[in-house]
């Protein structure tokens, strides 16, 4: 740190940063547009001008752009200098020449950075007497609404979209004051991260198209901190509700996890909460019933003396799974996923707990300088991670940048220096991935061969790692190349996961990470979990499902309790039919109607993330708490509350019991402050201080203002009154600060711009490195293709493969039709001349008709079906299948 002088006052500043960063870190208000903490400086908007003085004697000074000037020690600047103040107001005036005064009807109004900055600079009078420029707006897909007239041309959108997210179908067109930001023609934005434009855009050019359908101002939203449940990464989100409807999700900054950005599944998946498919009332044999009756039936079934069998869920919270486990007893608590998935999940947890490599946070991924991905298309299986991998590609070029003494925040210059130089990224996968465009090399192969490559890389790095027998020269060469790249890096990273349905792939990744660590490299390992709480469930412990069948059969009169889990998505349909038929009674708790809930004798409405509190363990091993944003009027309750009946009075009780009963989860309680936490005796309001209509919100029903709901489970209140200072990071319901109404108010809550929120990084890490364990040696034989059969593998899709988000109407628009994919040579035999072909896939006594799709990069001998999108989604894959052209 060095000392800089701002308006005569000495302050500490990081000389590696720029003056804008320094001023904002110091809590000063300096307006800006084109600069973004995650994207650096480009000097386009000229809004952050300050007066810089040569030395203490210099009184004239000169205007400089704070974002383009290093915060070098002894720098002297003035924010208050009249010339600087006037210039900044002039910049806003320039933007306002064409910016429509449509704030009252603009979706951004009330949380608009441009509004904030306009007020901040003091520009309040239009001197221009000319009409405003207009543009044509485009249809950009179901997520982002385009209103180009509002554009102030800060170039943030294209910088995010093209440079940061690596997609190319959004661009700047034209010159002078007619620069247009959009696509070459109307159409769905290709990037899986397009939704971030809504937050990246400082005004209302790109707004949330789903929010538009049920619009509410930010100030009228009741908000709560949440954790995204649509994949295993555990991105932090803020949910917003009004009138019992979940209105939207925005990013909630977490320096270690999602930073400033979300994926579109995480941002737009929320609408399943409002879905028509929601189970809003308890049902007995399909007929709606009262909460009291449902409770009565639940206790009679539970206390009826029958054998209780509980089936847990990788998408339910630790608390709910624990409540079921406690109710049925740990010996009769089953994991609810296929044996294969359970084995892989437990193996991943074991590897991360017992292995020498650090379990990578998304920030670790971003800071890696060489990456090996085994068997995953991360953009589709853990989308937000793809954005981090893209940033990691810049790391090695930073060395040259630093040698040339160009600061890393000088974004355009840094990219100019880097040119096409990228850190090594190797991707071995069973088909094309969305990161192939930036990979150093890709290897398309069957899971067995991906694992063999992984094992071979490990052996190349460390001779003590088992050697792969019968290795082809080609693969040995590739393994050597990868090994050299990883060992040559400062922070190598290995990513693997369950997409290939292969434990060998996961073990091979563990070997690579171990080989690196054992040879003195500071390697990290990121293992993607199948669902948002797969790791939490594995840590809790459960018995495999294959044993559940025996348990059900042993007791002809068993009562089966299924927790938030559509078994037909997890297990072969035949098997599930068998369980359900043999059980005497079936109790299901879930959020959306599905195949399993349809068969329930007693169906209980379970709260979604928006309506409940609980804890999830992310793929990093970070336990993070989500909080309900509203109390549903109907009988919807957290599953743990249904199952725990009266034994707990609050979430704290569940958590402390978990801590006592399951020591390895003891620290989970620390993921967020307990419900007793208060700031100066006050709870933390979920509603902003400008929240309107509290006294009249239900006046159409009764003019008596109801007492706000009580929240025994958290220290958040259903009110706009309460603590006014910054709460601990895990309890931050929204970002809002005086003068900063947009999401960029997060500046005011960070310890330093871009760094952790004050009060720490939300969540607790459960995995730390260990020195134990050894190499895996289960090296599979090479894949050999069969002549009349194909190895059927699931292909993950960001939109559709995850159960809940697929029910969000915006996402549903982008869900692919079911298909069976073959590579061109394999497909040739089936293709009908000039028309769509339908084939019949047969395996294990099952038959399914699906359209045939040709996928160029699918290895020969493999067949792919979209994960979670066909009637086959519960079958254990990979499996050898036969394919016939359907007549």
């Amino acid at each position, binding site marked *: 740190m060095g000392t800089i002088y701002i308006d005569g006052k000495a302050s500490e500043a990081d000389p590696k940063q720029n003056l804008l960063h320094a001023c904002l870190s110091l809590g000063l208000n300096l307006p800006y547009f084109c600069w973004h903490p995650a994207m650096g400086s480009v*000097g*386009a908007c000229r809004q952050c001008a300050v007066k810089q003085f040569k030395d203490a004697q210099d009184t004239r000074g000169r205007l400089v752009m704070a974002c383009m000037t290093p915060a070098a020690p002894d720098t002297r600047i003035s924010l208050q200098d009249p010339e600087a103040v006037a210039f900044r107001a002039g*910049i806003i005036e320039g933007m306002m020449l064409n910016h429509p005064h449509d704030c009252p009807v603009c979706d951004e109004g009330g949380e608009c950075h441009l509004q904030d900055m306009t007020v901040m600079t003091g520009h309040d009078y239009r001197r221009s007497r000319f009409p405003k420029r207009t543009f044509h707006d485009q249809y950009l897909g179901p997520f982002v609404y385009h209103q180009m007239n509002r554009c102030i041309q800060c170039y943030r959108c294209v910088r995010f979209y093209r440079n940061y997210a690596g997609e190319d179908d959004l661009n700047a067109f034209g010159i002078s004051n007619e620069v247009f930001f959009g696509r070459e023609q109307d159409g769905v934005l290709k990037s899986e991260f397009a939704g971030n434009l809504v937050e990246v855009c400082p005004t209302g050019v790109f707004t949330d198209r789903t929010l538009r359908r049920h619009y509410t101002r930010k100030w009228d939203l009741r908000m709560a901190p949440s954790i995204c449940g649509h994949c295993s990464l555990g991105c932090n989100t803020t949910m917003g509700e009004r009138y019992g409807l979940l209105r939207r999700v925005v990013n909630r900054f977490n320096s270690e996890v999602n930073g400033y950005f979300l994926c579109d599944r995480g941002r737009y998946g929320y609408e399943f909460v409002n879905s028509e498919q929601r189970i809003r009332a308890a049902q007995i044999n399909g007929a709606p019933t009262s909460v009291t009756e449902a409770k009565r039936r639940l206790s009679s079934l539970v206390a009826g003396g029958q054998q209780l069998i509980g089936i847990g869920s990788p998408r339910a919270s630790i608390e709910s799974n624990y409540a079921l486990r406690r109710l049925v007893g740990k010996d009769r608590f089953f994991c609810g996923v296929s044996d294969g998935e359970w084995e892989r999940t437990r193996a991943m947890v074991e590897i991360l707990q017992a292995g020498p490599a650090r379990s990578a946070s998304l920030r670790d991924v971003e800071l890696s300088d060489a990456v090996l991905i085994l068997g995953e298309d991360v953009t589709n299986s853990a989308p937000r991670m793809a954005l981090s991998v893209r940033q990691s590609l810049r790391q090695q070029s930073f060395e040259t940048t630093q040698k040339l003494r160009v600061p890393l925040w000088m974004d355009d*210059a840094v990219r100019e220096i880097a040119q096409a130089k990228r850190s090594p990224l190797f991707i071995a996968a069973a088909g094309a991935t969305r990161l192939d465009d930036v990979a150093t090399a890709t290897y398309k192969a069957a899971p067995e061969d991906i694992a063999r490559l992984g094992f071979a890389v490990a052996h190349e790095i460390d001779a003590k790692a088992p050697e792969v027998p019968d290795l082809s020269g080609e693969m040995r060469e590739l393994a050597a190349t990868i090994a050299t790249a990883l060992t040559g890096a400062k922070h190598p990273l290995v990513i693997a996961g369950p997409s290939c349905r292969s434990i060998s792939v996961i073990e091979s990744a563990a070997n690579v990470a171990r080989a690196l660590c054992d040879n003195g490299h500071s390697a990290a390992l990121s293992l993607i979990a199948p669902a948002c709480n797969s790791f939490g469930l594995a840590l809790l412990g459960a018995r495999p499902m294959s044993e559940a069948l025996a348990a059900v059969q042993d007791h002809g009169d068993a009562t089966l309790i299924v927790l938030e889990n559509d078994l037909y998505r997890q297990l072969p349909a035949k098997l599930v039919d068998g369980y359900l038929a043999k059980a005497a009674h079936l109790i299901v708790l879930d959020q959306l109607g599905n195949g399993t809930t349809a068969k329930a004798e007693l169906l209980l409405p379970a709260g979604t993330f928006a309506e409940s509190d609980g804890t999830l363990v992310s793929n990093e091993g970070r336990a993070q708490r989500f909080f309900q944003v509203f109390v549903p009027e109907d009988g919807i309750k957290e599953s743990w509350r249904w199952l725990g009946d009266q034994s707990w009075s609050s979430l704290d009780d569940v958590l402390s019991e978990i801590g006592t009963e399951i020591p390895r989860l003891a620290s989970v309680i620390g993921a967020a402050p307990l419900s007793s936490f208060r700031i100066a005796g006050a709870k933390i309001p979920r509603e902003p201080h400008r929240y309107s209509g509290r006294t009249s919100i239900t006046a159409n029903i009764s003019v008596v203002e109801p007492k706000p709901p009580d929240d025994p489970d958290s220290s958040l209140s259903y009110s706009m009154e309460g603590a006014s200072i910054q709460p601990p990071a895990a309890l931050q319901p929204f970002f809002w600060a005086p003068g900063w109404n947009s999401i960029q108010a997060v500046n005011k809550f960070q310890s330093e711009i871009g760094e952790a929120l004050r009060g720490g990084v939300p969540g607790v890490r459960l995995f730390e490195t260990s020195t134990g364990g050894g190499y895996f040696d289960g090296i599979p034989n090479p894949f050999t293709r069969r002549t009349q059969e194909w190895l059927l593998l699931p292909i993950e899709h960001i939109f559709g493969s995850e159960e809940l988000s697929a029910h969000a109407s915006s996402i549903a628009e982008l869900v692919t039709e079911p298909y069976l994919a073959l590579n061109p040579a394999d497909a040739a035999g089936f293709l009908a001349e000039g028309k769509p072909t339908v084939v019949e896939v047969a395996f294990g006594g099952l038959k399914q008709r699906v359209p045939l799709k040709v996928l160029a990069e699918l290895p020969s001998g493999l067949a792919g079906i979209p994960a979670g999108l066909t009637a086959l989604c519960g079958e254990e894959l990979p499996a050898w299948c036969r394919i016939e052209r359907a007549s």
Partner: protein
Amino acid sequence: MAYLVSHPDEVKVVSSRFGKGAASIETYLALDGYSSARKAIELGSDGIIAEMKASNLRGRGGAGFPTGLKWSFVPKQSAKPKYVLLNGDESEPGTCKDRLIFEHDPHSAIEGVIIAGLAIGARMGFIYLRGEYRYLLTIMERAIDEAYAHGFLGKNIFGSGIDFDIRSHTGAGAYEVGEESALMESLEGKRGIPRIRPPFPAVVGLYGGPTVINNAETLATVPHVFRIGAAEYAKIGTERNGGTRLFCLSGNVERPGVYELPMGYNLKKMIYEVGGGIAGGRALKAVVPGGASTPVLLPEEIDIGMDFDQVGKAGSMLGSGGVVVLDDRVCIVEFALRTMRFYQHESCGWCIPCREGTDWLKKTLTRFHAGGGVAKDIDNMRYLAENIMGRTLCPLGDAAAMPTIGFLKKFRKEFEDHLDGKPCAYAEQGDAALAPA
């Protein structure tokens, strides 16, 4: 094709081969062509740079940076390929000199690029012509082909063992791309928006490689420096302003055209003797000395030598050598409007003071000239121009602001006379005064 003019005061160096058919390599060789490249090969990198420094040649693009010094900044060792880039994006209104080089003496440009390549150790050069000069591309490409055919380009040029290639390329019509870093962006196929410096082109330039980028006239002058010798060349001009300059004399003069005169040549003399005085014996109203972006000079301010330093002292700039002469029929408000219309149209759209400022200025001037101006417009225009000056990412903002400030400062009365809905009393024949002869 343009016809050539001449005057006894001219010192023909760069233009020495104009009108002699030198676009054909046979003629060019007969006129001592490619002898400088051979000399340069013998001198080697250090020798070339020493010679260039001794010549006092300064960049002819407008900024006047010493050429030898620029070349010396390129690192000797580079992991990335080095490049020479000829900036033929001659777009400054009032400037038309490079056009004559491409038309009459394209080989001098090629030879200049070769010598610059030898100086910095590049193996590749690019000749970039502005989009509007596409019609000159055939001449340039034929010249390049001839040079290849003679073994002056390609493998083992001049039998020296050195390889050097040249490719030509045209712009798409953006003025902004005349700025060197924007030109590199354009050549790379990107939007023509200037880069942030550092890193400077000499270190990280085209495709990330160390790059020398020079104006076409500068590079076309280089072979002549070697032909007549650096010391001789330096003697031609004034101190620190070596050699000659192609001045583009246009506007209301009797004999407009491109004249090669020694640096430091008197402006008044240029207009009245070389140019034959004001057309039709009218009175001089103002002179724009170095292309549309340079502040205007009044008749009493033009008794100065035309070099970078003297014009600077007079409160303007030598710029690109485009001398625009305005007679008493010209309405300065209209002239300011024409100038602003150009810069507004060409603002790249990157930074706000220029993008929005030029647009507001253009609209104000348009209405102002049409009689719809109000008194506070005058101060507002001054404010807008000053708000651009020195505060944009690239010099285009300055180029738009400088002349505007100059007009408002020196012709305020003329602006005031347009107020209150009065018809323009200056433009006797409206647009005719500004129309090309």
